[in-house]
């Protein structure tokens, strides 16, 4: 069953036509990966879902309810957590304050969610009173993911979590994201094919603001021609 459905989205940023008829869906309980080169429109797709860059035409449905056209804070309150590309850290707030803020308008069992996140990312407990701006890149990413999950565990939109992280940290983070699939649905934007293909169930490939290929991740891994054609992987 589709949890999220994007239908023919057209989004402009100023004079630039970024999303040119994007349609896709995310199945409940899955990890769907959105691939594409820089500037393909992946981040804009997530920002359009969140209402930061509203589309001029097309629609976004979540749980069969139209969410396009409503303010971002109301989209979030429907249970959608967002991890931006730059992690969106509140650098002067501590880990504790950041996670408490995530609980403020959270949906569901916030204490349970908090406990699970601290179990999944023990570093956050270790640096509980540390300002988030002083955390390492990997810890910041963990905090950003925990904050998004505590805020809204219906669907997580995660934008390039592996960016700028060491291979060991990326592996650790991906293991955690895979575990999170047990309790939530994830739409992941990634450029790191090797890593994302290990955890993803479905994929979409974007190019120049359009979806150019999609299907199951297993099929993509076996389809060398598409990998070469769309992702430049031999």
């Amino acid at each position, binding site marked *: 069953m589709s949890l999220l459905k994007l239908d023919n989205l057209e989004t402009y940023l100023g004079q630039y036509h970024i999303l040119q008829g994007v349609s896709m869906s995310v199945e409940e309980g899955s990890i769907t990966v959105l691939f594409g080169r820089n500037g393909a429109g992946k981040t804009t797709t997530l920002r359009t879902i969140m209402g930061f860059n509203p589309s001029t035409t097309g629609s976004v449905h979540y749980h069969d309810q139209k969410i396009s056209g409503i*303010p971002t804070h109301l989209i979030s309150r429907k249970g959608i957590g967002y991890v931006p590309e730059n992690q969106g850290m509140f650098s002067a707030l501590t880990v504790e304050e950041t996670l408490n803020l995530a609980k403020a308008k959270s949906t569901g069992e916030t204490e349970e969610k908090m406990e699970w996140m601290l179990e999944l990312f023990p570093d956050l407990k270790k640096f509980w009173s540390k300002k988030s701006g002083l955390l390492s890149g990997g810890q910041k990413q963990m905090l950003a993911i925990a904050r998004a999950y505590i805020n809204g565990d219906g669907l997580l939109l995660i934008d390039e979590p592996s960016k700028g992280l060491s291979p060991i940290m990326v592996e650790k983070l991906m293991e955690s994201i895979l575990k999170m699939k047990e309790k939530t649905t994830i739409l992941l934007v990634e450029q790191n094919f090797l890593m994302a293909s290990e955890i993803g169930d479905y994929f979409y490939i974007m190019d120049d603001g359009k979806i150019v290929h999609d299907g199951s991740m297993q099929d993509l891994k076996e389809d060398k021609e598409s990998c070469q054609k769309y992702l430049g992987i031999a």
Partner: protein
Amino acid sequence: MEVFINLLVNGVSTGLLIFLLAAGLTLIFGLMSVLNFAHGGLFVWGAFSGAWIFKETNSFLLAIVGAVAVGMVLGWVLERFLIRPVYGNHVRQLLITLGGMLVLSESIKIFWGPNPIRVNLPAWLEGSYQFDGIIIIKYRVFVIVVGLLLYLALWLLLSRTQIGLMIRAGVLDKEMVQALGINVKGLFTFVFLLGAGLAALGGALLAPYSGVVFAEMGMQYAILAFIVVIIGGMGSLQGSALASLIVGVAGAFMAYYMPDLSLALNMLLLAIVLLVKPTGLLGEKGSAV
């Protein structure tokens, strides 16, 4: 010694009055990136409405409450109808808030006429305290106590409450705060009303302090408050408190020892701070407290 203590008390009390104006200004700038030149207009409306209510009712407490209410109502009108349509556009904000300042100042004359109005001290705050030949005016002590209590209340609001946490996060990343389900527009309105109320309170407290109110005093104090906000670090409440005290105390001493240079002092302080630490004394991206 007597002169020193008197100047110190004068400086601290003046500094805390400036702080009431600067606190709202710095929070509004920090959260909303709005340089609100109309803030001085709210201050002058607080001064006049407070003075008028006090004269009519002889209740200073009612005068303060009434002035704060007037400031908040005007603040709501300003935010909702003038500033909200120009969020994100600094040039328009500058023009519209400057215009708002002029309209607020000039409209005072419609209600209270063009001439300055004398304001008396409330009877229970008249007189002075005397210790070893040192005379300290009661009302100044009152202003210091109120100023410190308000600073403490603001600090507690920002550092110990959930709405304070939201404001501090909003200063750092408004978009991310929205993504956490928080209504940033509502937060903006709350901060704006808080700032407007503080500005009006500052005006209401200043009226008996200076003994006279006039329509142009808004601009005069708004400039001081802007200097304080820049010296302290834009968006930092503690920075504004520290800078208010520095400007108030330095101003009091300068006016006594070198009156000819007292006008240049604030500009000199501003220039030194900007040269040595361009982000202001306690200015650091994202530290609202």
